[in-house]
Protein backbone atom coordinates (compact mmCIF):
# COMPACT_ATOMS: atom_id res chain seq x y z
CA UNK A 1 0.00 0.00 0.00
CA UNK A 2 2.52 2.55 1.10
CA UNK A 3 5.36 2.85 -1.32
CA UNK A 4 6.71 0.07 -3.48
CA UNK A 5 9.18 -2.58 -2.31
CA UNK A 6 12.62 -1.12 -2.62
CA UNK A 7 15.55 -2.78 -4.41
CA UNK A 8 18.22 -0.35 -3.28
CA UNK A 9 21.53 -1.89 -2.33
CA UNK A 10 21.65 -3.24 1.19
CA UNK A 11 17.89 -3.46 1.43
CA UNK A 12 15.98 -6.74 1.22
CA UNK A 13 14.87 -7.72 -2.26
CA UNK A 14 11.35 -7.07 -3.45
CA UNK A 15 10.22 -10.65 -2.96
CA UNK A 16 11.48 -10.82 0.62
CA UNK A 17 9.93 -7.45 1.32
CA UNK A 18 6.65 -8.58 -0.16
CA UNK A 19 6.70 -11.79 1.88
CA UNK A 20 7.30 -9.82 5.08
CA UNK A 21 4.51 -7.49 4.20
CA UNK A 22 2.13 -10.35 3.46
CA UNK A 23 2.98 -11.98 6.77
CA UNK A 24 2.23 -8.76 8.64
CA UNK A 25 -1.03 -8.54 6.72
CA UNK A 26 -1.96 -12.09 7.52
CA UNK A 27 -1.34 -11.51 11.22
CA UNK A 28 -3.46 -8.38 11.17
CA UNK A 29 -6.17 -10.25 9.32
CA UNK A 30 -6.11 -13.12 11.79
CA UNK A 31 -6.31 -10.78 14.79
CA UNK A 32 -9.25 -8.95 13.27
CA UNK A 33 -11.02 -12.21 12.56
CA UNK A 34 -10.57 -13.28 16.17
CA UNK A 35 -11.83 -9.96 17.41
CA UNK A 36 -14.93 -10.29 15.27
CA UNK A 37 -15.61 -13.81 16.40
CA UNK A 38 -15.37 -12.79 20.04
CA UNK A 39 -18.64 -10.92 19.62
CA UNK A 40 -20.40 -13.62 17.67
CA UNK A 41 -23.81 -13.18 19.29
CA UNK A 42 -24.06 -9.57 18.14
CA UNK A 43 -22.68 -10.55 14.86
CA UNK A 44 -25.17 -13.22 13.83
CA UNK A 45 -28.07 -11.14 15.08
CA UNK A 46 -26.78 -8.08 13.24
CA UNK A 47 -26.41 -9.95 9.97
CA UNK A 48 -29.90 -11.38 10.06
CA UNK A 49 -31.44 -8.03 10.92
CA UNK A 50 -29.99 -6.31 7.92
CA UNK A 51 -32.72 -7.92 5.85
CA UNK A 52 -35.54 -6.33 7.79
CA UNK A 53 -35.61 -2.95 5.98
CA UNK A 54 -35.80 -4.78 2.64
CA UNK A 55 -38.91 -6.54 3.84
CA UNK A 56 -40.62 -3.20 4.45
CA UNK A 57 -39.50 -1.88 1.08
CA UNK A 58 -40.81 -4.94 -0.72
CA UNK A 59 -44.20 -4.60 0.94
CA UNK A 60 -44.29 -0.88 0.18
CA UNK A 61 -43.62 -1.35 -3.52
CA UNK A 62 -46.03 -4.26 -3.69
CA UNK A 63 -48.69 -1.94 -2.28
CA UNK A 64 -47.71 0.75 -4.79
CA UNK A 65 -47.99 -1.66 -7.72
CA UNK A 66 -51.34 -2.87 -6.36
CA UNK A 67 -52.75 0.65 -6.52
CA UNK A 68 -51.27 1.87 -9.80
CA UNK A 69 -52.33 1.04 -13.31
CA UNK A 70 -48.76 1.03 -14.64
CA UNK A 71 -46.98 -2.21 -15.42
CA UNK A 72 -43.58 -0.72 -14.68
CA UNK A 73 -42.01 2.23 -12.88
CA UNK A 74 -38.97 3.76 -14.57
CA UNK A 75 -38.44 0.47 -16.38
CA UNK A 76 -38.74 -1.66 -13.23
CA UNK A 77 -41.53 -4.19 -12.92
CA UNK A 78 -42.69 -5.25 -9.47
CA UNK A 79 -40.36 -8.23 -9.50
CA UNK A 80 -37.49 -6.09 -10.79
CA UNK A 81 -37.82 -3.77 -7.81
CA UNK A 82 -37.67 -6.63 -5.34
CA UNK A 83 -34.63 -8.02 -7.13
CA UNK A 84 -33.07 -4.56 -7.15
CA UNK A 85 -33.40 -4.10 -3.39
CA UNK A 86 -31.99 -7.56 -2.74
CA UNK A 87 -29.05 -6.84 -5.02
CA UNK A 88 -28.33 -3.52 -3.32
CA UNK A 89 -28.03 -5.59 -0.14
CA UNK A 90 -25.20 -7.46 -1.81
CA UNK A 91 -23.48 -4.29 -2.99
CA UNK A 92 -23.93 -2.62 0.40
CA UNK A 93 -22.36 -5.68 1.97
CA UNK A 94 -19.26 -4.78 -0.02
CA UNK A 95 -19.27 -1.00 0.08
CA UNK A 96 -20.59 -0.12 3.53
CA UNK A 97 -17.96 0.40 6.21
CA UNK A 98 -19.73 0.55 9.55
CA UNK A 99 -17.73 2.36 12.19
CA UNK A 100 -14.73 3.09 9.98
CA UNK A 101 -14.90 6.89 9.79
CA UNK A 102 -16.17 7.23 13.34
CA UNK A 103 -13.44 4.90 14.61
CA UNK A 104 -10.66 6.88 12.96
CA UNK A 105 -12.04 10.17 14.24
CA UNK A 106 -12.37 8.76 17.74
CA UNK A 107 -8.82 7.46 17.82
CA UNK A 108 -7.62 10.91 16.74
CA UNK A 109 -9.69 12.56 19.43
CA UNK A 110 -8.74 10.26 22.31
CA UNK A 111 -5.12 10.07 21.21
CA UNK A 112 -4.95 6.33 20.57
CA UNK A 113 -3.84 7.18 17.03
CA UNK A 114 -0.39 7.84 18.54
CA UNK A 115 0.07 4.07 18.64
CA UNK A 116 0.15 3.99 14.85
CA UNK A 117 2.52 6.90 14.62
CA UNK A 118 4.97 5.01 16.83
CA UNK A 119 4.55 1.45 15.60
CA UNK A 120 6.24 0.39 12.37
CA UNK A 121 2.92 -0.24 10.65
CA UNK A 122 1.16 1.76 7.99
CA UNK A 123 -2.17 2.90 9.40
CA UNK A 124 -4.15 2.90 6.15
CA UNK A 125 -2.88 -0.59 5.27
CA UNK A 126 -3.72 -1.74 8.75
CA UNK A 127 -7.26 -0.41 8.46
CA UNK A 128 -7.68 -1.96 5.05
CA UNK A 129 -6.49 -5.35 6.29
CA UNK A 130 -8.77 -5.10 9.30
CA UNK A 131 -11.67 -4.17 7.06
CA UNK A 132 -11.02 -7.05 4.66
CA UNK A 133 -10.98 -9.36 7.66
CA UNK A 134 -14.19 -7.81 8.94
CA UNK A 135 -15.82 -8.32 5.57
CA UNK A 136 -14.56 -11.89 5.15
CA UNK A 137 -16.00 -12.92 8.48
CA UNK A 138 -19.18 -11.09 7.64
CA UNK A 139 -19.52 -12.97 4.35
CA UNK A 140 -18.72 -16.27 6.05
CA UNK A 141 -21.68 -15.81 8.37
CA UNK A 142 -23.91 -13.79 6.06
CA UNK A 143 -23.73 -16.25 3.18
CA UNK A 144 -26.29 -18.40 4.97
CA UNK A 145 -29.09 -15.84 5.36
CA UNK A 146 -28.23 -14.37 1.94
CA UNK A 147 -28.50 -17.78 0.28
CA UNK A 148 -31.78 -18.51 2.02
CA UNK A 149 -33.33 -15.17 1.09
CA UNK A 150 -32.12 -15.28 -2.51
CA UNK A 151 -33.36 -18.85 -2.91
CA UNK A 152 -36.77 -17.95 -1.51
CA UNK A 153 -36.92 -14.91 -3.79
CA UNK A 154 -35.52 -16.61 -6.90
CA UNK A 155 -38.81 -15.98 -8.69
CA UNK A 156 -38.18 -12.23 -8.64
CA UNK A 157 -34.93 -12.45 -10.58
CA UNK A 158 -34.52 -12.40 -14.36
CA UNK A 159 -32.65 -15.35 -15.88
CA UNK A 160 -28.93 -15.53 -15.06
CA UNK A 161 -27.02 -12.92 -17.10
CA UNK A 162 -24.16 -13.82 -19.47
CA UNK A 163 -20.58 -14.35 -18.30
CA UNK A 164 -19.42 -10.87 -19.35
CA UNK A 165 -22.15 -9.24 -17.28
CA UNK A 166 -21.29 -11.39 -14.29
CA UNK A 167 -17.63 -10.46 -14.66
CA UNK A 168 -18.54 -6.77 -14.81
CA UNK A 169 -20.74 -7.24 -11.75
CA UNK A 170 -17.91 -8.84 -9.77
CA UNK A 171 -15.47 -6.13 -10.85
CA UNK A 172 -17.92 -3.41 -9.88
CA UNK A 173 -18.36 -5.04 -6.45
CA UNK A 174 -14.63 -5.17 -5.75
CA UNK A 175 -14.29 -1.56 -6.83
CA UNK A 176 -17.27 -0.60 -4.67
CA UNK A 177 -15.53 -2.12 -1.66
CA UNK A 178 -12.40 -0.07 -2.30
CA UNK A 179 -14.40 3.06 -3.05
CA UNK A 180 -16.45 2.72 0.13
CA UNK A 181 -13.31 2.11 2.16
CA UNK A 182 -11.34 5.07 0.88
CA UNK A 183 -14.28 7.46 1.08
CA UNK A 184 -15.02 6.59 4.69
CA UNK A 185 -11.37 6.53 5.72
CA UNK A 186 -10.83 9.99 4.23
CA UNK A 187 -13.92 11.19 6.04
CA UNK A 188 -12.62 9.84 9.33
CA UNK A 189 -9.31 11.63 8.85
CA UNK A 190 -11.13 14.94 8.84
CA UNK A 191 -10.94 14.32 12.58
CA UNK A 192 -7.41 15.75 12.40
CA UNK A 193 -8.93 19.11 11.51
CA UNK A 194 -12.33 19.05 13.20
CA UNK A 195 -12.89 18.00 16.77
CA UNK A 196 -16.40 16.74 16.15
CA UNK A 197 -16.88 14.88 12.88
CA UNK A 198 -20.00 12.92 13.76
CA UNK A 199 -22.20 15.55 12.14
CA UNK A 200 -20.08 15.50 9.00
CA UNK A 201 -20.29 11.72 8.91
CA UNK A 202 -24.03 11.91 9.34
CA UNK A 203 -24.36 14.44 6.54
CA UNK A 204 -22.27 12.17 4.34
CA UNK A 205 -24.51 9.23 5.20
CA UNK A 206 -27.56 11.25 4.20
CA UNK A 207 -26.19 12.15 0.80
CA UNK A 208 -24.87 8.65 0.38
CA UNK A 209 -28.22 7.09 1.29
CA UNK A 210 -30.10 9.22 -1.20
CA UNK A 211 -27.67 9.24 -4.11
CA UNK A 212 -26.32 5.71 -3.86
CA UNK A 213 -29.61 4.17 -4.89
CA UNK A 214 -29.99 2.48 -1.56
CA UNK A 215 -33.41 4.07 -1.17
CA UNK A 216 -34.81 3.51 -4.66
CA UNK A 217 -33.52 2.68 -8.16
CA UNK A 218 -31.85 5.84 -9.44
CA UNK A 219 -33.54 5.38 -12.82
CA UNK A 220 -36.57 6.93 -11.14
CA UNK A 221 -34.68 10.23 -11.19
CA UNK A 222 -34.39 10.07 -14.98
CA UNK A 223 -37.52 12.15 -15.46
CA UNK A 224 -36.33 14.96 -13.19
CA UNK A 225 -34.46 17.77 -15.00
CA UNK A 226 -31.41 19.41 -13.48
CA UNK A 227 -31.97 22.70 -15.27
CA UNK A 228 -29.22 22.02 -17.79
CA UNK A 229 -30.80 21.11 -21.11
CA UNK A 230 -30.99 17.39 -21.75
CA UNK A 231 -29.36 16.43 -18.46
CA UNK A 232 -31.55 14.67 -15.88
CA UNK A 233 -30.70 14.23 -12.20
CA UNK A 234 -29.94 10.58 -12.96
CA UNK A 235 -27.39 11.67 -15.60
CA UNK A 236 -25.69 14.05 -13.16
CA UNK A 237 -25.53 11.48 -10.37
CA UNK A 238 -23.62 9.14 -12.68
CA UNK A 239 -20.54 11.35 -12.39
CA UNK A 240 -20.58 11.28 -8.58
CA UNK A 241 -19.01 8.43 -6.60
CA UNK A 242 -22.12 7.55 -4.60
CA UNK A 243 -24.13 5.44 -7.00
CA UNK A 244 -21.19 3.06 -7.39
CA UNK A 245 -21.62 1.92 -3.79
CA UNK A 246 -25.15 0.54 -4.23
CA UNK A 247 -27.01 1.20 -7.47
CA UNK A 248 -24.42 0.44 -10.10
CA UNK A 249 -23.58 -3.23 -9.41
CA UNK A 250 -27.28 -4.03 -8.92
CA UNK A 251 -28.22 -2.33 -12.17
CA UNK A 252 -25.44 -4.21 -13.98
CA UNK A 253 -26.78 -7.56 -12.80
CA UNK A 254 -30.31 -6.64 -13.84
CA UNK A 255 -29.04 -5.73 -17.31
CA UNK A 256 -30.04 -2.06 -17.01
CA UNK A 257 -26.57 -0.94 -18.07
CA UNK A 258 -24.64 -2.54 -20.92
CA UNK A 259 -22.28 -1.97 -23.82
CA UNK A 260 -20.25 1.24 -23.98
CA UNK A 261 -22.29 2.72 -21.15
CA UNK A 262 -21.18 -0.14 -18.87
CA UNK A 263 -17.52 0.37 -19.80
CA UNK A 264 -17.80 4.10 -19.21
CA UNK A 265 -19.41 3.59 -15.78
CA UNK A 266 -16.75 1.08 -14.73
CA UNK A 267 -14.09 3.58 -15.78
CA UNK A 268 -15.75 6.32 -13.70
CA UNK A 269 -15.90 3.97 -10.74
CA UNK A 270 -12.22 3.01 -11.08
CA UNK A 271 -11.27 6.68 -11.41
CA UNK A 272 -13.10 7.48 -8.18
CA UNK A 273 -11.28 4.67 -6.39
CA UNK A 274 -7.94 6.18 -7.45
CA UNK A 275 -9.01 9.70 -6.50
CA UNK A 276 -10.29 8.66 -3.08
CA UNK A 277 -7.24 6.49 -2.34
CA UNK A 278 -5.02 9.47 -3.12
CA UNK A 279 -7.22 11.77 -1.02
CA UNK A 280 -6.98 9.32 1.86
CA UNK A 281 -3.16 9.25 1.63
CA UNK A 282 -2.89 13.01 1.47
CA UNK A 283 -5.29 13.41 4.39
CA UNK A 284 -3.18 10.98 6.42
CA UNK A 285 0.10 12.72 5.63
CA UNK A 286 -1.13 16.22 6.23
CA UNK A 287 -3.24 15.15 9.19
CA UNK A 288 -0.43 13.40 11.04
CA UNK A 289 1.91 16.30 10.28
CA UNK A 290 -0.62 18.68 11.75
CA UNK A 291 -1.24 16.34 14.67
CA UNK A 292 2.42 16.09 15.65
CA UNK A 293 2.85 19.83 15.17
CA UNK A 294 0.07 20.55 17.62
CA UNK A 295 1.14 17.85 20.02
CA UNK A 296 -2.14 15.95 19.86
Amino acid sequence: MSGLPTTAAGRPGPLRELATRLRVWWTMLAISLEERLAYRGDFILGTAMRFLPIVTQVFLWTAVFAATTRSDIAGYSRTDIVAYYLLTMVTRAFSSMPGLAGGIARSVRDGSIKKYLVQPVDYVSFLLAARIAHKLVYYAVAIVPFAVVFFLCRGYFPPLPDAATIAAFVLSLVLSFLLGFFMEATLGMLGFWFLEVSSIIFAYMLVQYLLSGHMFPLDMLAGIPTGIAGVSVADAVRWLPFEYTAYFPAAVWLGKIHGPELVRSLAIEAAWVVVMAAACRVAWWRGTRRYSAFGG
Partner: protein
Amino acid sequence: MHNSSGEPATGAVIEVDGLAKSYRVFDKPEGLVASVRSLFHRPSRLVEALKGVSLTVGRGEFVALLGPNGAGKTTFLKLLSGIITPTRGTARVLGHVPWERADDFRRRFALVMGQRNQLWWDLPAAESFRLHQEIYRLDPARFERTRDELVDLLGVRKLVLQPVRDLSLGERMKLELVAALLHEPEVLFLDEPTIGLDVVAQHAIHEFLRHVQAERRTTVILTTHYMKDVAALCERVVVITHGDVLYDGSLAQIVDRFTTHKIVTLDLDAAPEPGRMERFGFPCEVRGPQVVLRIDRGRIADVLPELLRIAGVRDVSVEDVPLEEIVAGLFRAAPAPAERPVGAGA
Protein backbone atom coordinates in the same frame (compact mmCIF):
# COMPACT_ATOMS: atom_id res chain seq x y z
CA MET B 1 -27.23 7.56 70.19
CA HIS B 2 -30.82 6.68 69.50
CA ASN B 3 -31.60 3.77 67.37
CA SER B 4 -34.27 4.69 64.90
CA SER B 5 -33.28 2.71 61.83
CA GLY B 6 -33.09 -0.77 63.23
CA GLU B 7 -29.36 -0.76 63.74
CA PRO B 8 -28.11 -3.26 66.25
CA ALA B 9 -27.58 -1.73 69.66
CA THR B 10 -23.94 -2.76 69.60
CA GLY B 11 -23.19 0.23 67.40
CA ALA B 12 -22.09 -1.89 64.47
CA VAL B 13 -22.79 0.03 61.29
CA ILE B 14 -21.55 -2.59 58.88
CA GLU B 15 -22.05 -6.29 59.53
CA VAL B 16 -20.84 -8.74 56.95
CA ASP B 17 -21.04 -12.48 57.26
CA GLY B 18 -19.62 -15.00 54.81
CA LEU B 19 -20.02 -12.64 51.88
CA ALA B 20 -19.00 -14.29 48.61
CA LYS B 21 -19.22 -13.33 44.97
CA SER B 22 -18.22 -15.42 42.00
CA TYR B 23 -18.30 -14.62 38.32
CA ARG B 24 -18.38 -16.85 35.34
CA VAL B 25 -15.76 -15.70 32.89
CA PHE B 26 -15.42 -16.95 29.36
CA ASP B 27 -11.97 -17.78 28.19
CA LYS B 28 -11.01 -16.17 24.98
CA PRO B 29 -8.96 -18.81 23.23
CA GLU B 30 -6.03 -17.59 21.22
CA GLY B 31 -5.59 -18.40 17.60
CA LEU B 32 -7.91 -18.38 14.65
CA VAL B 33 -9.06 -21.98 14.72
CA ALA B 34 -9.84 -21.78 18.40
CA SER B 35 -11.81 -18.58 17.82
CA VAL B 36 -13.90 -20.28 15.18
CA ARG B 37 -14.44 -23.24 17.45
CA SER B 38 -15.49 -20.91 20.24
CA LEU B 39 -18.43 -19.88 18.08
CA PHE B 40 -20.07 -23.10 19.14
CA HIS B 41 -18.50 -23.87 22.46
CA ARG B 42 -17.04 -21.46 24.94
CA PRO B 43 -15.02 -22.76 27.85
CA SER B 44 -15.71 -20.84 31.03
CA ARG B 45 -14.42 -20.69 34.57
CA LEU B 46 -15.90 -19.64 37.84
CA VAL B 47 -13.79 -16.92 39.39
CA GLU B 48 -14.33 -16.31 43.06
CA ALA B 49 -13.80 -12.62 43.52
CA LEU B 50 -14.76 -12.88 47.17
CA LYS B 51 -14.73 -16.14 49.08
CA GLY B 52 -16.67 -15.51 52.22
CA VAL B 53 -15.66 -12.34 53.99
CA SER B 54 -16.90 -11.63 57.51
CA LEU B 55 -16.39 -8.25 59.07
CA THR B 56 -17.96 -5.90 61.57
CA VAL B 57 -17.35 -2.17 61.52
CA GLY B 58 -18.51 0.14 64.29
CA ARG B 59 -19.72 3.68 63.99
CA GLY B 60 -16.98 6.20 63.38
CA GLU B 61 -14.33 3.67 62.43
CA PHE B 62 -11.93 4.48 59.60
CA VAL B 63 -10.95 1.19 58.02
CA ALA B 64 -8.34 0.66 55.34
CA LEU B 65 -9.00 -2.22 52.98
CA LEU B 66 -5.71 -3.36 51.50
CA GLY B 67 -4.88 -5.99 48.97
CA PRO B 68 -3.16 -6.51 45.64
CA ASN B 69 -4.98 -5.78 42.38
CA GLY B 70 -7.79 -8.26 41.85
CA ALA B 71 -7.96 -9.24 45.52
CA GLY B 72 -11.65 -8.38 45.70
CA LYS B 73 -11.52 -4.99 47.40
CA THR B 74 -13.63 -3.22 44.83
CA THR B 75 -16.03 -6.15 44.61
CA PHE B 76 -16.46 -5.89 48.37
CA LEU B 77 -17.25 -2.19 48.19
CA LYS B 78 -19.65 -2.76 45.32
CA LEU B 79 -21.47 -5.38 47.36
CA LEU B 80 -21.72 -3.07 50.35
CA SER B 81 -23.00 -0.29 48.07
CA GLY B 82 -25.66 -2.57 46.62
CA ILE B 83 -24.35 -2.25 43.06
CA ILE B 84 -24.04 -6.00 42.70
CA THR B 85 -25.70 -8.89 44.49
CA PRO B 86 -23.62 -11.56 46.24
CA THR B 87 -23.48 -15.26 45.43
CA ARG B 88 -23.82 -16.12 49.11
CA GLY B 89 -23.55 -14.52 52.51
CA THR B 90 -25.25 -11.63 54.21
CA ALA B 91 -24.45 -8.01 54.76
CA ARG B 92 -26.14 -5.19 56.61
CA VAL B 93 -25.12 -1.59 56.28
CA LEU B 94 -26.94 0.86 58.53
CA GLY B 95 -29.42 -1.92 59.17
CA HIS B 96 -30.23 -2.38 55.47
CA VAL B 97 -29.43 -5.16 53.05
CA PRO B 98 -27.50 -3.08 50.51
CA TRP B 99 -28.58 -4.85 47.31
CA GLU B 100 -32.24 -4.22 48.08
CA ARG B 101 -31.32 -0.63 47.24
CA ALA B 102 -33.84 1.00 49.53
CA ASP B 103 -33.96 4.75 49.04
CA ASP B 104 -33.61 5.24 52.79
CA PHE B 105 -30.34 3.33 52.68
CA ARG B 106 -29.00 5.03 49.59
CA ARG B 107 -29.64 8.44 51.09
CA ARG B 108 -27.33 7.64 54.00
CA PHE B 109 -24.12 6.53 52.34
CA ALA B 110 -21.82 7.59 49.56
CA LEU B 111 -19.39 5.86 47.24
CA VAL B 112 -16.43 7.64 45.65
CA MET B 113 -14.38 5.91 43.02
CA GLY B 114 -11.07 7.51 42.19
CA GLN B 115 -11.04 6.20 38.66
CA ARG B 116 -14.55 7.23 37.76
CA ASN B 117 -16.02 10.58 37.15
CA GLN B 118 -19.45 11.18 38.60
CA LEU B 119 -19.75 14.89 37.97
CA TRP B 120 -21.24 16.20 34.74
CA TRP B 121 -18.31 16.47 32.43
CA ASP B 122 -19.28 19.52 30.40
CA LEU B 123 -20.84 21.55 33.19
CA PRO B 124 -19.52 23.34 36.25
CA ALA B 125 -19.55 21.23 39.41
CA ALA B 126 -22.10 23.63 40.91
CA GLU B 127 -24.69 22.16 38.52
CA SER B 128 -23.91 18.63 39.65
CA PHE B 129 -24.19 19.77 43.26
CA ARG B 130 -27.61 21.24 42.61
CA LEU B 131 -28.76 18.02 41.01
CA HIS B 132 -27.43 16.20 44.03
CA GLN B 133 -29.54 18.42 46.21
CA GLU B 134 -32.63 17.42 44.24
CA ILE B 135 -31.84 13.73 44.20
CA TYR B 136 -31.07 13.53 47.89
CA ARG B 137 -33.90 15.92 48.79
CA LEU B 138 -31.63 18.21 50.77
CA ASP B 139 -33.01 21.18 52.61
CA PRO B 140 -31.78 24.25 50.63
CA ALA B 141 -30.34 26.16 53.59
CA ARG B 142 -28.56 23.13 54.94
CA PHE B 143 -27.35 22.12 51.51
CA GLU B 144 -25.78 25.51 50.96
CA ARG B 145 -24.16 25.53 54.37
CA THR B 146 -22.69 22.06 53.91
CA ARG B 147 -21.54 22.84 50.40
CA ASP B 148 -19.79 26.04 51.39
CA GLU B 149 -18.16 24.39 54.35
CA LEU B 150 -16.83 21.47 52.29
CA VAL B 151 -15.72 23.66 49.44
CA ASP B 152 -13.82 25.95 51.80
CA LEU B 153 -12.22 23.06 53.63
CA LEU B 154 -10.70 21.88 50.36
CA GLY B 155 -10.06 25.38 49.08
CA VAL B 156 -11.92 24.81 45.83
CA ARG B 157 -14.53 27.54 45.98
CA LYS B 158 -13.28 29.13 42.77
CA LEU B 159 -13.37 25.86 40.84
CA VAL B 160 -17.04 25.21 41.44
CA LEU B 161 -18.10 27.43 38.56
CA GLN B 162 -15.68 26.05 35.97
CA PRO B 163 -16.68 23.24 33.61
CA VAL B 164 -15.40 19.99 35.10
CA ARG B 165 -13.58 19.01 31.91
CA ASP B 166 -11.24 22.00 32.37
CA LEU B 167 -10.08 20.88 35.83
CA SER B 168 -7.02 18.88 36.79
CA LEU B 169 -7.35 15.38 38.17
CA GLY B 170 -6.68 16.56 41.73
CA GLU B 171 -9.20 19.38 41.50
CA ARG B 172 -11.76 17.02 40.07
CA MET B 173 -11.23 14.53 42.88
CA LYS B 174 -11.73 17.24 45.47
CA LEU B 175 -15.03 18.21 43.87
CA GLU B 176 -16.05 14.56 43.68
CA LEU B 177 -15.49 14.34 47.40
CA VAL B 178 -17.55 17.45 48.02
CA ALA B 179 -20.38 16.00 45.91
CA ALA B 180 -20.24 12.72 47.80
CA LEU B 181 -20.40 14.40 51.19
CA LEU B 182 -23.13 16.93 50.43
CA HIS B 183 -25.85 14.73 51.85
CA GLU B 184 -23.76 14.11 54.98
CA PRO B 185 -23.56 10.36 54.57
CA GLU B 186 -23.14 8.26 57.69
CA VAL B 187 -21.12 5.70 55.77
CA LEU B 188 -18.54 6.54 53.16
CA PHE B 189 -16.87 4.10 50.78
CA LEU B 190 -13.72 5.40 49.13
CA ASP B 191 -12.26 3.33 46.31
CA GLU B 192 -8.72 4.55 45.64
CA PRO B 193 -9.55 8.22 46.12
CA THR B 194 -5.96 9.39 45.79
CA ILE B 195 -5.00 7.38 42.73
CA GLY B 196 -2.83 9.38 40.36
CA LEU B 197 -2.73 12.49 42.55
CA ASP B 198 0.38 14.46 43.45
CA VAL B 199 1.67 14.65 47.01
CA VAL B 200 0.13 18.06 47.71
CA ALA B 201 -3.33 17.00 46.57
CA GLN B 202 -3.03 13.74 48.50
CA HIS B 203 -2.13 15.65 51.62
CA ALA B 204 -5.04 18.04 51.20
CA ILE B 205 -7.43 15.13 50.82
CA HIS B 206 -6.01 13.43 53.92
CA GLU B 207 -6.53 16.57 55.99
CA PHE B 208 -10.02 16.97 54.64
CA LEU B 209 -11.09 13.39 55.26
CA ARG B 210 -9.63 13.39 58.73
CA HIS B 211 -11.43 16.59 59.62
CA VAL B 212 -14.80 15.55 58.20
CA GLN B 213 -14.61 12.11 59.71
CA ALA B 214 -13.77 13.42 63.16
CA GLU B 215 -16.46 16.07 62.96
CA ARG B 216 -19.28 13.84 61.76
CA ARG B 217 -18.22 10.47 63.11
CA THR B 218 -18.61 9.07 59.62
CA THR B 219 -17.85 5.39 59.18
CA VAL B 220 -15.34 5.09 56.36
CA ILE B 221 -13.97 2.16 54.39
CA LEU B 222 -11.07 3.09 52.17
CA THR B 223 -9.26 1.02 49.58
CA THR B 224 -5.92 2.27 48.43
CA HIS B 225 -2.49 1.30 47.23
CA TYR B 226 -0.80 4.19 49.00
CA MET B 227 0.40 3.41 52.51
CA LYS B 228 0.56 7.16 53.12
CA ASP B 229 -3.25 7.21 52.99
CA VAL B 230 -3.39 4.41 55.52
CA ALA B 231 -0.84 5.88 57.89
CA ALA B 232 -2.51 9.27 57.77
CA LEU B 233 -6.08 8.14 58.22
CA CYS B 234 -6.79 4.64 59.43
CA GLU B 235 -6.44 3.00 62.77
CA ARG B 236 -7.80 -0.31 61.51
CA VAL B 237 -6.50 -2.30 58.59
CA VAL B 238 -8.12 -5.21 56.78
CA VAL B 239 -5.97 -7.08 54.28
CA ILE B 240 -7.74 -9.06 51.58
CA THR B 241 -5.93 -11.36 49.18
CA HIS B 242 -7.55 -13.71 46.69
CA GLY B 243 -10.98 -12.96 48.11
CA ASP B 244 -10.14 -13.85 51.70
CA VAL B 245 -9.43 -11.75 54.77
CA LEU B 246 -5.81 -12.28 55.68
CA TYR B 247 -5.50 -9.77 58.47
CA ASP B 248 -7.92 -7.62 60.40
CA GLY B 249 -6.55 -5.49 63.19
CA SER B 250 -4.96 -2.22 64.12
CA LEU B 251 -2.31 -0.55 62.09
CA ALA B 252 0.11 -0.73 65.03
CA GLN B 253 -0.38 -4.46 65.38
CA ILE B 254 0.28 -5.16 61.74
CA VAL B 255 3.80 -3.95 62.33
CA ASP B 256 4.15 -6.02 65.49
CA ARG B 257 2.81 -9.15 63.98
CA PHE B 258 4.38 -9.22 60.60
CA THR B 259 7.82 -7.82 61.15
CA THR B 260 10.68 -9.59 62.78
CA HIS B 261 13.21 -6.80 62.68
CA LYS B 262 13.86 -3.10 62.82
CA ILE B 263 15.92 -0.94 60.58
CA VAL B 264 18.89 0.76 62.15
CA THR B 265 20.69 3.51 60.26
CA LEU B 266 24.15 4.64 61.34
CA ASP B 267 25.80 7.81 60.10
CA LEU B 268 29.58 7.51 60.32
CA ASP B 269 32.39 10.01 59.88
CA ALA B 270 33.64 8.19 56.82
CA ALA B 271 32.76 5.17 54.77
CA PRO B 272 33.61 2.01 56.78
CA GLU B 273 36.34 -0.32 55.56
CA PRO B 274 34.96 -3.23 53.57
CA GLY B 275 34.02 -6.14 55.80
CA ARG B 276 33.98 -4.13 58.96
CA MET B 277 30.23 -3.86 59.38
CA GLU B 278 29.53 -7.39 58.22
CA ARG B 279 30.92 -8.86 61.42
CA PHE B 280 27.67 -7.99 63.18
CA GLY B 281 26.16 -10.71 61.08
CA PHE B 282 23.11 -8.80 59.86
CA PRO B 283 21.97 -8.02 56.37
CA CYS B 284 23.68 -4.76 55.78
CA GLU B 285 23.85 -2.10 53.15
CA VAL B 286 26.66 0.43 52.96
CA ARG B 287 25.97 3.76 51.21
CA GLY B 288 29.12 5.77 51.63
CA PRO B 289 29.34 6.92 55.24
CA GLN B 290 25.81 5.64 55.89
CA VAL B 291 25.14 2.03 56.96
CA VAL B 292 21.68 0.46 57.05
CA LEU B 293 21.24 -2.69 59.15
CA ARG B 294 18.27 -4.99 59.61
CA ILE B 295 18.26 -6.26 63.16
CA ASP B 296 16.01 -8.76 64.95
CA ARG B 297 13.59 -6.90 67.17
CA GLY B 298 14.45 -9.10 70.14
CA ARG B 299 18.13 -8.28 69.91
CA ILE B 300 17.90 -4.51 69.41
CA ALA B 301 18.56 -3.78 73.09
CA ASP B 302 21.70 -5.92 73.07
CA VAL B 303 23.10 -4.82 69.76
CA LEU B 304 22.51 -1.09 69.97
CA PRO B 305 25.11 -0.34 72.70
CA GLU B 306 27.64 -2.39 70.74
CA LEU B 307 26.95 -0.41 67.58
CA LEU B 308 27.32 2.87 69.41
CA ARG B 309 30.80 1.87 70.49
CA ILE B 310 31.98 1.83 66.86
CA ALA B 311 34.38 4.69 66.33
CA GLY B 312 33.03 7.65 64.38
CA VAL B 313 29.29 7.18 64.86
CA ARG B 314 27.63 10.54 64.45
CA ASP B 315 23.97 9.60 64.43
CA VAL B 316 21.74 6.57 64.89
CA SER B 317 18.09 6.04 64.01
CA VAL B 318 15.92 3.01 64.71
CA GLU B 319 12.81 2.59 62.56
CA ASP B 320 10.14 0.05 61.78
CA VAL B 321 10.20 -1.68 58.44
CA PRO B 322 8.26 0.57 56.01
CA LEU B 323 4.56 -0.26 55.79
CA GLU B 324 4.80 -0.80 52.05
CA GLU B 325 7.30 -3.56 52.62
CA ILE B 326 5.21 -5.28 55.27
CA VAL B 327 2.10 -5.18 53.16
CA ALA B 328 3.94 -6.35 50.05
CA GLY B 329 5.23 -9.26 52.12
CA LEU B 330 1.72 -10.04 53.24
CA PHE B 331 0.41 -9.99 49.68
CA ARG B 332 3.14 -12.30 48.53
CA ALA B 333 2.73 -14.73 51.41
CA ALA B 334 -0.90 -15.39 50.50
CA PRO B 335 -1.63 -18.72 48.80
CA ALA B 336 -2.24 -18.71 45.06
CA PRO B 337 -5.87 -18.60 43.94
CA ALA B 338 -7.59 -21.85 43.13
CA GLU B 339 -9.92 -21.35 40.21
CA ARG B 340 -12.47 -23.93 39.42
CA PRO B 341 -12.83 -24.68 35.74
CA VAL B 342 -16.48 -25.06 34.89
CA GLY B 343 -16.02 -26.63 31.50
CA ALA B 344 -18.69 -26.14 28.91
CA GLY B 345 -20.62 -22.92 29.11
CA ALA B 346 -23.35 -22.36 26.60
